[in-house]
């Protein structure tokens, strides 16, 4: 039986500690700040929605990714600069019975995107170009039924994508992208 403990409830941050099974194993502690906002890691990450599927290309690591359904919808929200809290609220409103799952699944999804360098926390590149530089924004509606957002990752074209000719660098060096404000 899983016992849910809400150990600290602050104004903006909820720490969720999951106790595992009756054998007492711990699951990961998930921390999400509702005010955290992410930005797409342009210009080296590009994405396009085609026939309901979002294809994301990361020229930094040569991987490409597929997101459909809820994952695709969330990518569109991240493109628009929605905060974690705003995204969470939207999900909780749509999927009223999924509270615990949403916190864990959303945190996992955002962690995955961040670990793949597809998104960065707002403020790391204050002068990043705006949405216009991202190309087309994803317009996929939130699905009617809930399933965890999933990101599929492919590495079979790494050597080609890594050899994309030019990667701008900032004064701090690779792999930070030089922005228009820096030039």
């Amino acid at each position: 039986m899983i016992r849910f403990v809400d150990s600290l409830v602050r104004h903006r941050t909820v720490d969720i500690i999951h106790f595992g099974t009756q054998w007492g194993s711990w699951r990961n502690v998930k921390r999400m700040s509702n005010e955290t906002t992410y930005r797409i890691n342009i210009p080296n990450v590009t994405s396009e929605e085609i026939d309901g599927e979002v294809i994301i290309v990361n020229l930094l690591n040569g991987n490409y990714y597929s997101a459909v359904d809820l994952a695709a919808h969330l990518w569109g929200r991240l493109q628009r600069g929605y905060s974690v809290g705003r995204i969470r609220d939207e999900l909780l409103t749509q999927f009223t019975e999924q509270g615990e799952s949403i916190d864990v699944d959303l945190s996992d999804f955002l962690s995955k995107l961040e670990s793949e360098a597809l998104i960065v926390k707002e403020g790391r590149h204050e002068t990043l170009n705006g949405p216009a530089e991202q190309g087309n924004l994803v317009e996929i509606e939130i699905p009617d039924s809930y399933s965890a957002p999933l990101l599929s990752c492919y590495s079979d074209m790494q050597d080609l994508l890594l050899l994309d000719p030019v990667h701008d660098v900032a004064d701090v060096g690779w792999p930070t992208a030089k922005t228009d404000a820096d030039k």
Partner: protein
Amino acid sequence: MTVDSPAPLVSVVIPCYNSERYLCAAIDSVLAQNHRPLEILVVDDGSTDNSAKLALEYGAPVRLLSQSNQGIASARNTGIKVSSGYFLAFLDSDDLWSEDKLTIQKKALEESPDIDCAFAHAEQFHSPDLARGERDKIFCPPGPLPARLASAMLIRHDAFMRVGLFDESLRVAEFVDWLARATHANLHSVVLPDVLLRRRLHGSNTGSTLRGARPDYARALKAALDRRRSATGSSSDEN
């Protein structure tokens, strides 16, 4: 092909667009190959500089083809359509081959008849004419990298045609698309450990000047995923 057969003709297609600065070095690196015979097809894609004039000055085995500006995929296809070699190779007009590139790759293909095309490793370098400030803006990966690129490929002509021409609707990622189709067509390839391509980094590399065309990568990769899913009859295709 037996030991006593005449050496096979290799067709080399060099597309160019306003490439006067580096084109001669590229052509020279092909002429320096220790393989003969060669057919070098320079396809001028509507240049407004002296690219065509420079190519014309070479004479045989360099042949100039000219067309209005339609992109690199179209330029390569124009060269392919008139090529007559047993083997087909490509070289971007700002890159360089090592002098034994064709010999090494041809040998690999002749020793393994089940292999359709050979790639190699590539070394990237800052073009010496880059100003210091420009150099600092362009990252040059240290060391050679495996290069499944058009400029690093030698392929049997009939194997190339089995896959088909380059997709002219793509301004960039045309080789990503071609390679994905080649995989789908069960083309067998090998990436040789030899560094046979020197890839020049400079301010006007296509990828930097056509940054707005980057959605083409997503399009090419989506098409590749859909082909893969159709082949397996599944939507689960993660590798």
